[in-house]
């Protein structure tokens, strides 16, 4: 076997959400191919949403992803309210943001502690890690639990929340309901700040990628549940123009569609959000980021774990602020009478921008649906990163190179159920 031609294959990716594989071909020191293969069985949501009532997309699309159901709900309710010309009052909007903070805290803590940290510390998983460092894993689980506590209290259930609806909530919690939550969150904030400090001490490969970033921006605050789209290239456009800039196309090796921004691969998610909006973080989160060695932007995907930790601290800080300023919306929801129209919605799922577009008939029945999840937008960038990482580490043996490829993919917290799961990588040298 010569080293001139090598193939790396991970046939089932681990510690990612969904089912995927990686196939890398190297010849004469050149990376010929780096395919992130998503073989998650297609479920055809956009097809069976046709003919459903505009009030149903909220519950139906949450089932696309068990990790980020609130992101699906938020993009759906926003699109429906946009189509029907309804604007909810600020108190409902603030409660929605609190709910979404819960999802960020829960999803980011899951990814940092259970999926990503084992890569940096050389463990196969967090359970094995806990045998040596139980207190660390317990800290992560406790943060995750605080996020889930918000989802349960405000959303009625941690996975596929039942309380949100088009127009608001079925019922809104009282201030007294939220008080115990605040106590739990104050403890979680200390844990999150300790997490930022801790993950900042990991070894990161030296890598700066010159990738276009896309994120939402809200003039008033760090964008989570709404905003306009902005890019690192200086472009800015409303959510309704999303499909004029982002085009999805199909590739043979994947059941997820690939997306390009004005013809080029781009990145959405924590690095994009942080690099475009870090000035809008709370003082506490900005301070933590700065102490962790982050500048105003971050272009090293391996440091995404630090950015995720900063965002977790921010989401907890923001949740505490929202609870402190809470005014119970009454009524908890506003009517959203249907009309024949097109509506757009976008929100920052933990892994990046999630876009929905619906066309309704006069009775509010969905005539067409388009859903662009973050992982399909990031897929081209993930493949490009794998290519760069492999090209820069050809000296590594197959096992080490394979592990590095897997880590590279996990940098993006790819949600393959939305678009893959375990990367099984096998290596072939010819």
């Amino acid at each position, binding site marked *: 076997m010569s080293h001139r031609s090598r193939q790396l294959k991970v046939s*089932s*990716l*681990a*510690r*990612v*959400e*969904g*089912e995927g594989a990686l196939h890398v071909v190297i010849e004469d020191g050149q990376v010929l191919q780096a395919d992130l293969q998503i073989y*998650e*069985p*297609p*479920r*055809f*949501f*956009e*097809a*069976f949403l*046709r003919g*459903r009532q505009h009030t*149903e997309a909220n*519950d*139906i699309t949450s*089932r*696309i*992803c*068990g*990790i980020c*159901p609130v992101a699906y709900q938020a993009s759906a309710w926003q699109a429906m309210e946009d189509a029907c010309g309804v604007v909810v009052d600020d108190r409902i909007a603030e409660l929605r943001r609190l709910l979404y903070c819960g999802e960020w805290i829960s999803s980011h803590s*899951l990814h940092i502690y*259970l*999926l990503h940290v084992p890569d940096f510390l050389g463990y*196969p*998983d*967090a*359970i*094995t890690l*806990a045998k040596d460092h*139980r207190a660390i*894993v*317990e800290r992560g*689980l*406790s943060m*995750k*639990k605080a996020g*889930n506590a918000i989802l349960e209290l405000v959303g*009625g*259930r*941690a*996975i*596929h929340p*039942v*309380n949100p609806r088009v127009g608001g909530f079925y*019922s809104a919690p009282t201030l007294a309901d939220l008080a115990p939550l605040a106590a739990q969150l104050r403890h979680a904030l200390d844990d999150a700040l300790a997490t930022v400090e801790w993950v900042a001490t990991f070894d990161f490969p030296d890598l700066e990628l010159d990738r276009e970033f896309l994120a939402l921006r809200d003039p008033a605050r760090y964008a989570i549940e709404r905003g306009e789209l902005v890019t690192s290239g200086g472009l800015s456009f409303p959510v309704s123009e999303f499909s004029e800039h982002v085009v999805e196309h*199909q590739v043979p090796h994947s059941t997820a*569609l690939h997306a390009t921004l004005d013809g080029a691969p781009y990145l959405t998610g924590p690095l994009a959000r942080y690099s475009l909006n870090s000035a809008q973080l709370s003082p506490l989160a900005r301070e933590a980021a700065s102490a962790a060695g982050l500048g105003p932007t971050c272009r090293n995907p391996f440091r995404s774990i630090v950015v995720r930790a900063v965002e977790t601290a921010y989401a907890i800080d923001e949740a505490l602020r929202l609870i402190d300023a809470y005014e119970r919306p009454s009524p908890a929801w506003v009517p959203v009478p249907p009309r024949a129209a097109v509506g757009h919605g976008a929100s920052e799922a933990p892994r990046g921008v999630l876009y929905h577009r619906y066309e309704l008939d006069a009775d509010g029945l969905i005539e067409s649906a388009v859903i662009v999840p973050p992982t399909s937008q990031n897929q081209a960038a993930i493949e490009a990163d794998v290519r760069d990482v492999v090209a820069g580490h050809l000296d590594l043996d197959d096992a080490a190179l394979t592990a590095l490829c*897997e880590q590279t993919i996990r940098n993006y917290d790819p*949600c393959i*159920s939305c678009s893959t*799961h*375990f990367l099984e990588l096998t290596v072939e040298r010819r």
Partner: protein
Amino acid sequence: MSEHRSEYRSEARNVARSGANPAMSAGAKSQDSRAPTLAVWKFASCDGCQLTLLDCEDELLSIAGEITIAHFLEASRNVLPGPYDVSLVEGSITTPGDVERIQRVRAESRVLITIGACATAGGIQALRNFGDVEDFRSVVYASPQYIDTLATSTAISAHVPVDFELRGCPIDKRQLLEVIIAYLAGRKPDIPDTSVCTECKRRGLTCVMVADGTPCLGPVTHAGCGAVCPSVRRGCYGCFGPMTGANLPALIPQLHACGMSDGDVDRVFATFNVAAPGFALPEAGA
């Protein structure tokens, strides 16, 4: 080896009938002095049900101390070879490859437990069973020829014998813990087969249908969620699928009385458990 596996299978079915699990009792454990092995498998699904295991923040590390997690791709890159004492299966069967894969999972599993509406009833993706999958494929994908899929989404029990079915979209964390603990202890899981109404009453909630005139599927829906919807003054929308003996003909006139149209009734039963026979609409009501 194949004989060994088929032995596992018949033993597993006996367990399901008797509720006892000799292989996993303390006696058996000391015999081969190893912790029982747990495997988690994913088919077509959203990941939410297996995430429920990771959502057991207080119990996860204790459970992991009692068992060996042998195959759980969402959580670990370590994969141990089968056979496995308990397999949790999430998701429905929607591709030719998965038709084969579930057979291998069954052959390697002493006890096979399906978790969630996809695995027990085909999930929301079973809406394709009532439509034209070719049409579905071309709506979502520009080059549908690349997409390998079956015309139907089916429950795991349509393909292999299943020892226990845990309902829900998603499953409930407390119920999942009960099922795992029961199988570890070698007893039958205590999972009531009643309606959501019983949970609602036990929580002391005011009936949303009687008091508010809100349509509610509670009277025909399998218990397990803890009546989460009525607790926020919303009618149950059937995540846990039909209870045994669900009486749809009795409920449907009441749904109409609460203001639902025929179309609304059609749609509310056509969600996450659309392919569950107990939620099939009676001819007259359809």
